[in-house]
Structures are given as structure tokens and as C-alpha cells.
């Protein structure tokens, strides 16, 4: 009895930790008694609410997750989809199918965030929206152009298709709503849910962010690293990661023209990229048939797996799907310590080339878009069994959908909130250490000062005193005045460095000239 109780205590501790969202604040160093008292009360409240959330979990969460356990000498990765279909109920076995559409090119898929609707796009211009609950085809259109990618916007009413020359936004009825001319020939589209930003990367390696609520172009950056079609959004913090042909992975935010992070991951081009929903783990795969699992807090490799992968995707529960050729491998870490091992495999018919694998949210289903259409297979344990109606509701009515749209628009985050560590919002920025500014910083400051000097407005002089030559000299005078302190500083530094230079002649002068060194007065 004692051992069981301990177990449940450990479980409760784990759960409480999950709800606490980090460590409690350290109140020891505070001298302000009033503030200390107020913060102590708050911390107490947080502890209580985390404990209550952990306790009511067993009543509040109706469903349990899926699982697959092998018995005896059986291994889970040898189990075929047909044998799984025989064991599960009819409703679930309906989720296993192959849709064969050989003429219209490799298919890419995208699911809405509640897993209810799917948009499929064939390379030869076939766009289709399917309701996954009833497996009902809502609308299909043929745009008669190459379609390279499709992405749902905030709900099932709108989706964007990256067509030959520009991306277009369509309605659920197939009506074309917008033609996004500024993006150019887009290779990949990603939608940032919380910010209502549509990110796209085009043929020339230009990354663009557009706000789909007001249509404003927020950012337009030349990555400078060439054409790439590997792009993923990290759902935890909203940064967009691109994988380039030089093997570097760069991470971008819409408010800066230089990437946040540039990491050299693979010796060859990156073939695909995927983020774990908790935001700390990333999987990348390169052409050298290796998958690397990264810890994004330390930017270190946790694990390297020898596995082909043309496409990668993480599920809500942390299973990793890797697809290459006509073979799909599902990797899972059972111990929780990011040690991935093979969980399930699936091979399709020989001619089918896997284009994209996407896990369906809140279901134990993997959608595969391949060259002959799309398929769906069952992966027990991949989806989150308990959804939250206010986050994503697979059983949404139209009234609920409209209300949710309004609420999410009210809560739309400004693009400045995208940062590598999203918990930094609202925290105090540590005062900058008084270090000497680097050369770059000094130059940047000088440029900024010159810009402001150039921007000054001059008084409008009349009666013949406003000659253009005089205006030009006045402007030059202002710019020189802005530059002067920096130039003085520079000359001062030169003087000091020259003096320092002079003071150590013994190390520099050749031995024969030592006699001419000025001796210090002893």
C-alpha cells in the first residue's frame, strides 16, 4: 500500500509541476516587506491553483489516450495496419484508407487546428476540402496551375494555396478571395495562429509575413541563402525556421531583418524540419540520411538517428513521423528522456512517393500526401485525447466558430511578441552591463546620428536668404556636427592605442634597434 501511495504522490507531483509553469520566485533577497508579503500571497495562490488543477484532472478529462502494446515476442514496429484495423472499432477503422488520384500529381495536406477539416492540394492544380468527421468532400476545385502548397488560415472557412505565380486565398466555397501579388512565386506557406500572420518563402529565398486581418505586409526579408522549400513554424513561440541547402537552419521573427538564430545542422542540404509541440525539441533531417534531434534551449544535438527522411512531423503527444520513398517510420520516446526509438512502420505500394506526413490533431491518425493521392493510417497514442473547447473544438457548431473567431481576433498578438523565449513578456529586462560598445555598435550609433541630422527641417528663410547653396552647406554643417563626437572618440582611441604601441617597444623592435628604445626614468 505504501508503494502504491508513493507512486500516486509522484504522479501528483508531476502533474502539479506541469501546471505550475516554471519555478516559484525566490523572495529571499527582497527587502521591501510590503512587496514581499504581496508576492508571497500570490505564490501561495499559484501553488493552490496548480494543485487543484492536478486533482480535478481525473474527473475533468473524460478520455484516455491510445496505446499499442506488443505481447510476447512481437515487436510494435512489425505490426501492420491491417492487424490494427481488425482490433479497433468500426468508427476508428474508417480512418484508415487510401485515396488514389494518380493523374493530378503529388499531394500536400493541411489540417485545421481542431483536426476536423483537411485541405488537400495536388501539384497539377487540384484543391479539395474534406470534412474528416463524415469523410465528406465539401468542395473541390481545379485551378489549372501548379499548386505547391496549401495552408489553412484561422478556421476552415479560409485557406491559402501557393500557386504558380502568386498565392491565392480561397473561401470554403472555392471562391477566390485574394490574390497576394507581393509574395511572388511561393514554395511554402505557414500560418501563425496567434498572430494571424501568413508567412511565405518564395523561389528567390524571400521571406514575407502578411497580416491576414488587415492585409498589411509586416515583414519582407531577403534571406540571402538561396532557394529553399523547407519551412516550419514553432508553435510554442511563433518563430519561423527555414532549412537551407547549405545545411544551416535559420530562425526568423517578423520584426528583424537578420535571423534570430543560425545553426549549422547538417553537412548537406536540409530535407525537412519539424518542431515538437512543447517548443524545446526540433528534428531536422539532411540528405546524408540522418535525423538529428535538437534541444532548442541549449542548441545542442540530443540524438542522431540513422534514418532516411524526406518529410518529418511531430504529433501532439511527441511521436515523430519520418517519411521517405514509400516507407514511413514512426519514432517515439518511451522513457521521456528524448531517446527516440522505432515505434511503428508502414510501407505503401511501391510506386507511391511520400510527399508530406501530417498528424491529425486530437486523433490517432497520420495523414500522408503522396504522388498517387493521399492516405490515412492509424497510429495509436499520437493524438491528445482530451481537447479544450476554448482552444480547439472538433465538434464546433457554426455559432461557436463565429464566437471563437471574434475572441481570437480580440486576442490577436502584435508581431513584436514573437521571441525565442515567449515567457519573457512582462519580465524585467536586466540592466545592460556597462561594457565598451563594439565597433559595430559605435558605427551603428554614428549612422543613426547622421540619419537624424539629415532629417532636420530648416527654417524657411525669405527675402533672398534661402539660396540652395546655403541650404546645402547648412546641411553638411549639421551632419559634420553630428559626426564630430564619434570622430573625436575615434582619434582619441587611435592616440591611446598608438601610445600603448609606443610603450611596448621591447616586444616589437628588433634586437638591433633596442639601444634606441626610450628608457623609462627609473
Amino acid at each position: 500500500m505504501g508503494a502504491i501511495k508513493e507512486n500516486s504522490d509522484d504522479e501528483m507531483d508531476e502533474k502539479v509541476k506541469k501546471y505550475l509553469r516554471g519555478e516559484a520566485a525566490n523572495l529571499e533577497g527582497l527587502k521591501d516587506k510590503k512587496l514581499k508579503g504581496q508576492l508571497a500571497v500570490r505564490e501561495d495562490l499559484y501553488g493552490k491553483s496548480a494543485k487543484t488543477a492536478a486533482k480535478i484532472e481525473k474527473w475533468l478529462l473524460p478520455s484516455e489516450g491510445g496505446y499499442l502494446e506488443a505481447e510476447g515476442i512481437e515487436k510494435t514496429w512489425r505490426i501492420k495496419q491491417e492487424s490494427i484495423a481488425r482490433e479497433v472499432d468500426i468508427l476508428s477503422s474508417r480512418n484508415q484508407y487510401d485515396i488514389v488520384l494518380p493523374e493530378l500529381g503529388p499531394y500536400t495536406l493541411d489540417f485545421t487546428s481542431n483536426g476536423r477539416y483537411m485541405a488537400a492540394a495536388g501539384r497539377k492544380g487540384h484543391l479539395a476540402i474534406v470534412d474528416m468527421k463524415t469523410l465528406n468532400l465539401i468542395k473541390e476545385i481545379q485551378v489549372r496551375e501548379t499548386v505547391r502548397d496549401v495552408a489553412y488560415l484561422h478556421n476552415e472557412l479560409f485557406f491559402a494555396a501557393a500557386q504558380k505565380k502568386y498565392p491565392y486565398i480561397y473561401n470554403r466555397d472555392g471562391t477566390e478571395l485574394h490574390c497576394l501579388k507581393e509574395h511572388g512565386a511561393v514554395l511554402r506557406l505557414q500560418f501563425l495562429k496567434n498572430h494571424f500572420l501568413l508567412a511565405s518563402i518564395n523561389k528567390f529565398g524571400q521571406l514575407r509575413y502578411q497580416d491576414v486581418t488587415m492585409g498589411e505586409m509586416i515583414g519582407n526579408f531577403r534571406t540571402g541563402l538561396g532557394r529553399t522549400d523547407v519551412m516550419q513554424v514553432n508553435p510554442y513561440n511563433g518563430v519561423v525556421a527555414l532549412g537551407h541547402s547549405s545545411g544551416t537552419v535559420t530562425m526568423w521573427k517578423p520584426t528583424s531583418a537578420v535571423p534570430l538564430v543560425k545553426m549549422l545542422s547538417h553537412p548537406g542540404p536540409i530535407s525537412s524540419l519539424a518542431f515538437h509541440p512543447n517548443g524545446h525539441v526540433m528534428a531536422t533531417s539532411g540528405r546524408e540520411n540522418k535525423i538529428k534531434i535538437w534541444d532548442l534551449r541549449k542548441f545542442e544535438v540530443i540524438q542522431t538517428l540513422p534514418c532516411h527522411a524526406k518529410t518529418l512531423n511531430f504529433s501532439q503527444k511527441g511521436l515523430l513521423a519520418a517519411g521517405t520513398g514509400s516507407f514511413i517510420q514512426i519514432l517515439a520516446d518511451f522513457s521521456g528522456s528524448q531517446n527516440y526509438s522505432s515505434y511503428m512502420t508502414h510501407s505503401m505500394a511501391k510506386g507511391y512517393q511520400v510527399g508530406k506526413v501530417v498528424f491529425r490533431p486530437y486523433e490517432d491518425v497520420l495523414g500522408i500526401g503522396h504522388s498517387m493521392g493521399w492516405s490515412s493510417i492509424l497510429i495509436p497514442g499520437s493524438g491528445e485525447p482530451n481537447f479544450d473547447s476554448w482552444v480547439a473544438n472538433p465538434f464546433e457548431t457554426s455559432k461557436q466558430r463565429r464566437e471563437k473567431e471574434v475572441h481570437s481576433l480580440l486576442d490577436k498578438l502584435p508581431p513584436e511578441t514573437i521571441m525565442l523565449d515567449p515567457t519573457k513578456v512582462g519580465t524585467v529586462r536586466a540592466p545592460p552591463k556597462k561594457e565598451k560598445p563594439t565597433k559595430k555598435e559605435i558605427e551603428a550609433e554614428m549612422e543613426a546620428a547622421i540619419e537624424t541630422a539629415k532629417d532636420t527641417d530648416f527654417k524657411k528663410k525669405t527675402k533672398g536668404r534661402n539660396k540652395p547653396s546655403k541650404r546645402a552647406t547648412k546641411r553638411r554643417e549639421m551632419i559634420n556636427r553630428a559626426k564630430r563626437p564619434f570622430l573625436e572618440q575615434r582619434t582619441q582611441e587611435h592616440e591611446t592605442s598608438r601610445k600603448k604601441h609606443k610603450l611596448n617597444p621591447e616586444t616589437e623592435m628588433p634586437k638591433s634597434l633596442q639601444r634606441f628604445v626610450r628608457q623609462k626614468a627609473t
Partner: protein
Amino acid sequence: MKVKVISRSTGEFTRERSQDLQRVFRNFDPTLRSQEKAVEYVRALNAAKLDKIFARPFIGAMDGHRDSIKCMAKNPNYLKAIFSGSDDGDIRLWDMASRRTVCQFPGHQGAVQGLTVSTDGSILVSCGSDCTVRLWNVSDANVADSDYLSDNSAKPQAVYVWKNAFRAVDHQWDGDLFATAGAQVDVWNHNRSQPVNTFDWGSDTTISIRFNPGEPNILATSANDRSITLYDLRMSSPARKVIMRTKTNSIAWNPMEPMNFTAANEDCNCYSYDARKLEEAKCVHKDHVSAVMDIDFSPTGREFVTGSYDRTVRIFQYNGGHSREIYHTKRMQRVFCVKYSCDASYVISGSDDTNLRLWKAKASEQLGVVLPRERKKHEYLEAVKNRYKHLPEVKRIVRHRHLPKPVYKAANLRRTMIEAERRKEQRRKAHSAPGSIMTEPVRKRRIIKEVE
């Protein structure tokens, strides 16, 4: 092999009939929600903006008096009513809901200087500069049946004439004694026409008086010689006195912490004291730019309202150094008396321009019946706004108040003067031997001495 796959049947997750409520499922797991802090920040910003949009604190003015209003009294048993007395001897009972006079109490020959109601709500005591104290019968029956179209006037139950003009009056809590302040402090009984007891300590007129809500025998008074004196009726002698640098105009005891009281002073500040330890103020509340004339605590004990000579009404937190809210109107002149309503929702101010004004205590509060969901939403928005109110964009919106130009300029001037004084003090300290100049803490600075 054991296998289980998530399968949700539509029946379990959707409602059975269209008359049912929609089913809602919750999962509080933080991994399902991303960027929670940024979402909270956006909500805090929107909440601050909405607050400002809905901030309409002024409800109405009660017009009727013909001279400036010097004193007000609350009836603890009847929420809607308020008594006010003006400089021409006119005492009126107002119904705050319709903002009309219910009853008039004529009789005083000169200015009405003080008004108070007994704790059971039956007797109204008024005192004036015509050296009289009048007792009026204002039990519920009397008030409730009045018809406010006809100007009802009542006859006083008793009139007591005494030697000097009176400046203030207050009634004991749960007792039948009341005390008047004038040349000396007199303690009266309802039925006696002469004071039961007289206190006199110091040579100057007492200008305000307040009984302690917790200890019915203790009262605090303030006098023209810049002192605050505490009296104990059981000892029939004055207990303690503290002399400050400037005169205190009014005192209010904290109803929830009856050992603390706050004094409204002539030097534009309010000082909160612990009655047991008068050598140091507990808190100094600074924000007014002219003398603070009156002060009243909210029944929650967490806030108090002050009215000042600079034509503004401010609401402070009980332990906050600066005001949380300021109310002003072009038509409102010098504010001489303020009261916080007994349900902590309204603030009433009586001023020089013969009007009583009714304001909301929380400027953007929704009045009337609030549905439970609305209330929860308001509470959530308030909490999220308080969590992020230190961030610059939110702070800018939350702090923003429009000040009338004279107040704004006077505040700037005061700030410059105080800054200059502080800088000089710092330089004096820096250029003298360490330890030779001791700065007194602000809480002690304005106190001259404490006398037993």
C-alpha cells in the same frame, strides 16, 4: 497485441436536444496553449483601454441649496438617503436615487456646521454657528412616507442652546451620547439640555471630531493649534495629543481597522496614524495641491475619499501614497465635505457651488444587476490588468487622467519645489561630515511632538 485508438462518439460530445446547453470540455494543460503571457498582455492592454472608454463616474448633481454646503451625514440604516447642511441654515434630506429633496429641516439661524445621525437611524443631530444643537426625529417611517413633490419640513424634537458656536458634531457608535466641538469639546446625552461632560486641553477651538467605530468611548478631535487629540470618555480626561506643523481639517477612522485613523491636513497631504503610536505616521498620502478639507473611509476600510480646496475629489487606497482616482468638473468649486456611501459604490461630494454631486467609486463600473458571467469577466479583466500594469504601454493608459489646468500647473510647481528642496538637502549632506545631517523620514517630518 493490445491496441486502443482514440475514438469519440458524436453523441457523447454534442448536446442531445436543441434546448440543452452546448457541452464544454476543459483541459488546462499548458502545452495546448502557446504564448499565454503575450495573450494575457494583449488582454490587459485591451482591458485598460475598455476601462477608459467606460469610465463615466459622474452620475448627477443634487441641486437645491442656496448656499455652500458645509457638512453631510449618512444614515447607517437607510442606504438611499443623505443629509446635507449649508451655510444659510438649510438642512435637507436627499433621496440619491432620484436626486431630489425628500424633506427639509429649517430652523438654524446661522450656518449649519455639523450634522450626524445616531447609529439606530432615529435621531439627526445638527449644530450651528448660532450656538444651538437641534435634534430631529428621522426614523424610517418618517422618511419613507414623505412625498417629495411637496417640500416637507419637519419640526425639531429638541433645541439645546449653549455658550459658544459649534464647529462639528459626531454621534457615538451604538450609544446615546454625542459630542460637539467648538471652543471646547462637550459630550451630550439626547435627553439632557446641557452637556454631560466637557473636555478642554489647549487654548484653541476644536474644529472636527470623530468617534471611534470600534471603541465607542474613544474620540479624536483636531484643533486650530495644529494638534490632533484623542479623548477617552471612561477616563473623562484627554488621553493623547500630537502636534503637527499644519492644522488638520478632518479625521476619519478606518472602519475595518479601528485603531487607525487618517487625518486630512492643510498642507495638502493626508496622514494615516495608528492611535497607539502617534509619534510616526503610518502612511503619508500625497496628491492634492491645496488644503484637504474632508475625508471619509469606505465601509470596506480599503479606500478613502478626500475632498480638497483645489476643487477636486480624490480616492486613495488605505495604504497607498498616491491617489487612484481623481474627480473634477468645471462647475464644481471648492469641495468642503465628502462621504463614501454605505455600500461602497458611490461617493458624494458637497461643494461651494451649492450642489451635492454623486459619483461612482469605481469609474468604469457597470451599475445595476450584473449577470454572473459579466461579473466574472470584469473580475478577470481587472486581475489581468493588475498583473501587467507595470508594463509601459499599459501603465500609460491606466495612469492617464485629465487634470484641470490649474491643478496640473500647481502640481508641477509643487513637484519642482519639492525636487529643489530635496536636491539641496542631498548636496548639503554630500558636502558635510557623514552623519552630521540626519534626514527625518517623511512620516515623522510633519510632527512636532507628541504630548501625553
